[in-house]
């Protein structure tokens, strides 16, 4: 058996060699012209020599360097590697030819080999003077002259792309293929620009338009497709791979995250034809743009799409460094086509970039206030709410409504003077408020008069020696030397409960001061109980509520917005927990009115276990202390209503303000309380308005809480120092480095650009950046033609492949960059070119000579991406729900797919509950992307798992694909719906019926021989199902959509089988 295997492998390898050799000859054949270093020599040196004789000094053998001309020409120990004009005196040549196994280069054990053809090239190159060139991709592209062509070929040119392609075909002695039929082009371009096939109606319209208007019809069709909202969806698919978008965090726990608003941003960006330099800038640094908009900050989700590890016990810094590294890798690969990550551990072996260059790039991304271990239960900080366009509009409407109320209330206030007549009604109101306090549910009350035991289970001890005038009686006061008090006893239940207190900070306060804390400050982050506990802190005048089981993996943090707690003035604070452990359950009230909040962390799953509190200090060894007063602390073991919270405020606020005003000491704030109190007590109209305003405000806050969240970038106030990490190890700090890019190699730092991510974006998008334009157009090209002009989409370095059409690449890059980074214009030019419009039919001879179609002597033909195969089936069957954007959806997936795979805990994203209704039939780019177990249909058709940046998918052809197309419920349901269409829309004649579905799927009518096969199968199945109608009914029973009962089951089942055949055809799942 083994013998047979070996023989098979041998013949297979020989064949493989032959094919590849042919391909190489086709793509990069040396012409009889002068040898050119970049095209002919660099690939040989890079592959065979530079690993040991390149720029990495640590790896350099014999001190010889071949990547720099001066070094290569310098005399060396016992000879000279390269003597220009004298190959026979050049060691490089003699060592290649040596038969001594100690002499020969490359060494036999290196697995490298220079072919005789390559050796001959090297010899010629040295004979011709051994001229070096800077690597082509590091030289800014210049606009090349358009090549001259034969008259015959000139007539074929539709735009400059064709000139470059035809010129190469002329030198190869090949003719281009004829133009594809208009309907073939329309299907191709529709799939390429929208990911959806043309409808028969669109085909008919286009065919008549072509007859009527010729070329204008092609332009109109391109423009229609480019204007479609599905253009953005189509382009997003590839970018989601590059940007490693996922709906889960990856790694072992692989719990859910919410990033779909960033996906919406991508779709919008392509649809609105956002100039690509803005596309780069906003994703890298939208948060740093002046007056950054919500959309610009949202765009930076790109930098947070990396995987995040929440595995207990990991070393936090190790993973934080991974995330920063991932950003460098993604940015470098997706926009520069550089394999920068090679320099994480050492200088690049092949390209002139160093480890220092790497860590200078690293330092741009190193300043995010983030943790290594995070994201176990939802998004990892930093996060922000990201309303959709509709939600933004709704928010604006709500804000306007509130402003209208406020204007009315303000008018009423303005018309109201304080008078002594108000004293009694105010007193009465205060008494009523006191009566409304639900004292029976009050689990803790500290009047803060002096140290005294409170109730049975509580005691306040260690009261600070200081006290001061309070809101009601005396208050506790701290001068910052010690905690105010320690409260011992049972913990406050932070669930369906409320905590209220007064505070008046002194002028001198730390910007972040603890008010209540029982948080554990022992151990290290990622320690099993690190951060366990609860805190309320005063941070820059805002109330900051933190609840942690373990920090930061299980942490909740909510900060008020607009509390305006200023030194020297009393303010009343109530914090309410509405139940559950989500951040949206935390409500903060200032002076009896709820304020808006900002969620910083939202990862709690249970509650901490710590008991007792420090007041005005925390448990850290070097705790900062709150300076100021605190008074009237009340905890309630049920949730207070809005009215009750207002009452708890008023019961103390009004008597206090009254005393102040009567003694002439009232400030603006106290006067305000009194005026509002007087209005409340005496003016029914005020009550109505205030009540309505309160309701509108509550609705507004609820809306804010319901907004989708997204992880974004933000900069720490003080940047982290970045270091070269020795051998890439997170804890091996080498030389300290400052932010920078490979500027000498590629492009200067733009004058005046800041040394931050925004500056980096400017550096990348300057017109003479040699790589970015080329890399981006090359990837878009590959999207249409299957292979890039540079085949190695992710590597434009010296190990990358020489471009098949270098001038075309440069022309496209210049057009793109100089034309304002206009993506739609680029696609328009490409799809209207004669090159793109060629027929994809290939002769055996051409297929053998150019299997990958690098020379473009024919139109593109390759299998559709996974998403589009499914989307097409949904579209033509009429099942597709074509709404653009929104949260991820859960189409059919085999039951128990996660069994045995996902972690044994119910984190978000570990359970697949199939969607109902429309969401079963959305486009595939909206399918929930679980990185460790992605949807099997996507994986079967070569979608990556998105754990890291991928810029090209493999294209395989496997039996699992056949099984999925034959048996996956979406495809079965689509064939049933197509069967229905066949019967209902296809007319009475079977031939017309099968032709209809065939055209839906392939964009053309079947040939007679094809019709015969389809009809024969239809007829057989109809006979079979007629004899066995139960089996027909069973066959139809797939999918959630109802079976059309008006159709005879046997007939429908037979039609569905034939429709299924059509969905399985190679032509259907290919772009032709």
């Amino acid at each position, binding site marked *: 058996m083994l013998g047979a295997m070996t023989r098979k492998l041998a013949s297979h390898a020989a064949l493989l060699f032959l094919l590849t050799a042919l391909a190489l000859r086709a793509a990069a054949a040396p012409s009889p012209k002068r040898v050119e270093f970049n095209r002919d020599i660099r690939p040989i040196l890079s592959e065979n020599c530079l690993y040991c004789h390149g720029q990495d000094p640590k790896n350099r053998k014999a001190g010889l360097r071949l990547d720099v001309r001066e070094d290569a020409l310098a005399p060396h120990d016992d000879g000279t590697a390269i003597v220009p004009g004298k190959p026979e005196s050049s060691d490089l040549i003699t060592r290649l030819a040596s038969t001594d196994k100690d002499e020969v280069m490359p060494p036999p054990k290196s697995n490298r080999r220079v072919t005789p053809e390559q050796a001959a090239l090297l010899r010629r190159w040295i004979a011709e003077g051994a001229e070096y060139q800077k690597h082509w991709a590091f030289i800014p592209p210049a606009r090349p002259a358009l090549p001259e062509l034969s008259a015959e070929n000139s007539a074929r040119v539709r735009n400059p792309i064709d000139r470059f392609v035809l010129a190469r075909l002329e030198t190869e002695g090949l003719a281009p293929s004829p133009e594809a039929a208009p309907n073939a082009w329309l299907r191709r371009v529709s799939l390429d620009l929208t990911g959806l096939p043309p409808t028969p109606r669109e085909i008919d319209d286009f065919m008549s338009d072509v007859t009527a208007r010729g070329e204008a019809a092609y332009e109109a069709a391109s423009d229609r497709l480019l204007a479609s909202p599905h253009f953005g969806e189509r382009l997003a698919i590839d970018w989601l791979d590059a940007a490693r978008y996922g709906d889960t965090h990856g790694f072992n726990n692989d719990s859910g995250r919410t990033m779909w608003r960033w996906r919406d941003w991508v779709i919008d960006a392509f649809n609105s034809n956002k100039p690509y330099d803005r596309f780069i800038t906003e994703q890298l640094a939208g948060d740093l743009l002046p007056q950054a908009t919500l959309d610009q900050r949202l765009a930076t989700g790109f930098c947070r799409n990396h995987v995040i590890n929440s595995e207990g016990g990991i070393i936090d810094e190790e993973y934080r460094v991974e995330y920063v590294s991932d950003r460098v890798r993604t940015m470098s690969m997706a926009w520069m086509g550089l394999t920068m990550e090679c320099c994480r551990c050492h200088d690049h072996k092949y390209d002139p970039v160093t480890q220092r260059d790497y860590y200078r790039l690293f330092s741009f991304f190193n300043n995010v206030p983030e943790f290594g271990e995070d994201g176990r239960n939802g998004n990892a900080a930093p996060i922000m709410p990201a309303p959709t366009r509709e939600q933004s509009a709704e928010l604006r409407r709500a804000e306007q409504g509130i402003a209208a109320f406020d204007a009315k209330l303000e008018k009423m206030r303005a018309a109201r003077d304080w008078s002594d007549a108000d004293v009694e009604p105010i007193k009465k109101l205060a008494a009523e408020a006191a009566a409304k306090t639900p004292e029976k549910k009050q689990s803790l009350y500290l009047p803060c008069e002096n140290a005294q035991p409170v109730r049975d289970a509580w005691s306040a001890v260690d009261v600070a020696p200081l006290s001061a005038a309070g809101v009601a009686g005396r208050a506790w006061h701290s001068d910052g030397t010690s905690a105010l008090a320690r409260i011992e006893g049972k913990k406050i239940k932070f669930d369906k409960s409320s905590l209220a207190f007064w505070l008046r900070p002194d002028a001198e306060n730390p910007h972040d001061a603890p008010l209540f804390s029982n948080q554990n400050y022992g151990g290290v982050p990622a320690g099993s109980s690190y951060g366990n506990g609860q805190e309320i802190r005063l941070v820059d005048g805002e109330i900051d509520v933190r609840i942690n089981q373990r920090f930061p993996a299980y942490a909740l943090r909510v900060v008020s917005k607009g509390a305006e707690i200023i030194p020297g003035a009393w303010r009343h604070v109530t914090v309410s927990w509405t139940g559950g452990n989500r951040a949206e359950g935390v409500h903060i009230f200032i002076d009896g009115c709820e304020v808006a909040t900002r969620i910083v962390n939202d990862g709690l799953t249970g509650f901490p276990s710590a008991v007792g509190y420090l007041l005005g200090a925390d448990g850290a060894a070097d705790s900062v202390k709150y300076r100021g007063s605190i008074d009237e602390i009340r905890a309630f073991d049920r949730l207070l209503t809005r009215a009750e919270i207002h009452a708890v405020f008023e019961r103390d606020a009004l008597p206090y303000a009254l005393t102040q005003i009567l003694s002439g000491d009232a400030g603006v704030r106290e006067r305000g309380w009194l005026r509002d109190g007087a209005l409340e007590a005496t003016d029914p109209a005020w009550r109505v308005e205030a009540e309505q305003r309160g309701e509108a405000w509550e609705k507004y806050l609820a809306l804010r809480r319901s907004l989708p969240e997204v992880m974004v970038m933000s900069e720490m106030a003080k940047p982290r120092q970045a270091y070269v990490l020795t051998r890439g190890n997170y804890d091996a700090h080498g030389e300290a480095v400052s932010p920078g890019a490979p500027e000498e190699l590629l492009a200067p730092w733009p004058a005046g650009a800041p040394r931050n991510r925004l500056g980096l974006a400017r550096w990348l998008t300057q017109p003479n950046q040699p790589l970015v334009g080329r890399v981006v157009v090359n990837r878009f090209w590959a999207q249409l033609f299957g292979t890039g002009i540079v085949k190695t989409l992710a590597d434009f370095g010296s190990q990358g492949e020489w471009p098949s059409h270098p001038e075309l690449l440069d022309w496209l890059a210049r057009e793109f960059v100089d034309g304002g980074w206009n993506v739609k214009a680029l696609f328009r030019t490409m799809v209207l070119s004669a090159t793109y419009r060629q027929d994809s039919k290939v002769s055996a001879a051409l297929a053998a000579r150019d299997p990958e179609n690098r020379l473009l002597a024919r139109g593109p033909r390759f299998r559709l991406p996974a998403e589009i195969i499914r989307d097409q089936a949904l579209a033509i069957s009429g099942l597709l729900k074509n709404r653009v954007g929104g949260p991820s959806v859960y189409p059919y997936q085999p039951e128990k797919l996660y069994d045995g795979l996902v972690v044994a805990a119910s984190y978000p994203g570990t359970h697949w509950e199939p969607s109902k209704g429309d969401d079963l039939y959305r486009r595939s780019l909206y399918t929930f992307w679980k990185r460790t177990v992605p949807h099997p249909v996507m994986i079967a058709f070569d979608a990556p798992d998105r754990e890291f940046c991928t810029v090209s998918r493999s294209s395989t052809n496997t039996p699992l694909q056949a*099984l999925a197309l034959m048996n996956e419920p979406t495809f079965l349901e689509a064939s049933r719906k197509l069967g229905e269409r066949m019967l209902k829309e296809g007319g009475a004649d079977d031939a017309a019926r099968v032709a209809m579905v065939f055209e839906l799927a392939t964009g053309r009518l079947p040939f007679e021989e094809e019709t015969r096969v389809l009809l024969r199968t239809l007829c057989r199945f109809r006979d079979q199902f007629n004899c066995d109608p139960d089996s027909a009914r069973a066959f139809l029973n797939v999918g959630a959509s109802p079976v059309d009962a008006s159709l005879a089951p046997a007939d429908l089942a037979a039609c569905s089988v034939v429709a299924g055949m059509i969905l399985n055809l190679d032509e259907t799942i290919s772009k032709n």
Partner: protein
Amino acid sequence: MSCHQYESAFTRRDFLAKTGLGIGAAALAQMLGTEAKASDAATAAAPLFPNFAPKAKRVICLFQSGGPSHLDLFDNKPLLSKRFNEDLPDSVRQGQRITGMVASQARLALQPSKYSFKQSGPGGAWISDLLPHTQAIAGDICVVNSMFTDAINHDPAITFFQTGSQQPGRPSMGSWIDYGLGRMNENLPAFVVLISVATKGGAGQGLLARLWGNGFLPSRYQGVQFRAAGDPVLYLSDPEGMTRDRRRVMLDGIDELNRMQFERVGDPEIETRISQYEMAYRMQSSVPELMDLAGEPQHALDLYGPDVTKPGSFARNCMLARRLAERGTRFIQLYHRDWDHHGELQNRMPSICQDVDQPSAALVQDLKQRGLLDDTLIIWGGEFGRTPYAQGNANREKYGRDHHGKAFSIWMAGGGIRPGIVHGKTDDFGFNVVENGVHIHDLQATILSCLGIDHTKLTYKFQGRQFRLTDVHGEVVRAILT
């Protein structure tokens, strides 16, 4: 209407004959198509494998996910009992990093195993009494007590074991081997994955599809999971109403239409597609046949123990592994989950050992009886071991242990492995390797070596660099080879 008017002039057999698509030709077509793709990034001078005469043709990896405690299973350390509850000496730890879970523990208190050990087999391997069946096959296996790895947490450690890199993105061992050696059976995938979880307790750590993923190799090399529930291979079963005969008729239609398209368009991928549909059709019989144990004699079932009747059990999967091995599957990857015994080890260990002990031993014996052990390589072990100190407090009866990558044990058997020996040694604490350390890359190099592959030659060019399973490391452990 009669169907005759649509009948073609030729039958299916004629069709296949005419188009040159016999079974052999289908295999050839498949190679033409997909292998030409595989050359995308491979160099033209892709080396031929095997490089030298292989000892093993196939591999069965019995992966124990979660990190089994070497100190309770294979590495007997009486000193831990003598020095019970003493602190791990700094001279032993030598400042080596420990996980965040115990980093804040005040003490690292030495924790002996509560289980007794017996010396078994000619090499005198110490094997825990929790594994009586393994003790009984000690003469057939090689216990390696000097394994060590770079990672201390599950995800990176298991990814390292299976792909040679702690970070995601590299091809798994099975993918590399499939890529290098190709398939031996045209009706089954070359790389199959079977998963089971502990009978008692829970599933523990998640598994990730990337562990049998193709990384940057073409995705045809990814492992195919055979599932215990539902379709053994996803979408394998035809829907109701679609009998085998009917499927054949439908496939004939698809083949014929694809063939017409090929004749018009000329793209060789279409021929590949036709052959893949044929293979799918064959898999629809071969996989259910494989999964069906009805033909197994009672004595064979008994060998694997009572759990063999339960789909999805480790015992069942071991028997399936043997059946796959018989049919020529190249790489058979089993996982058994829930070895992550941070606490309650005393409750979880006996039960999980019971899950795996008899079936693992049965697999070795069964293969041996069938003459398959000689060319089948078996590897039994997890991603790391566990600490000689307790997680939490030390206690002679109730305890847990944290992750430990500096030393752990595995066993190997079969093709190319010297049976009945013990390789490598740890210090008296079972903390550091002191003799014949075997790094994960060494293990991988050794596995490839058994298959006749020089691990430095099995490479794939990706992003400008030649990658390999062992990165730039790995030494074949000659001492354990026959």
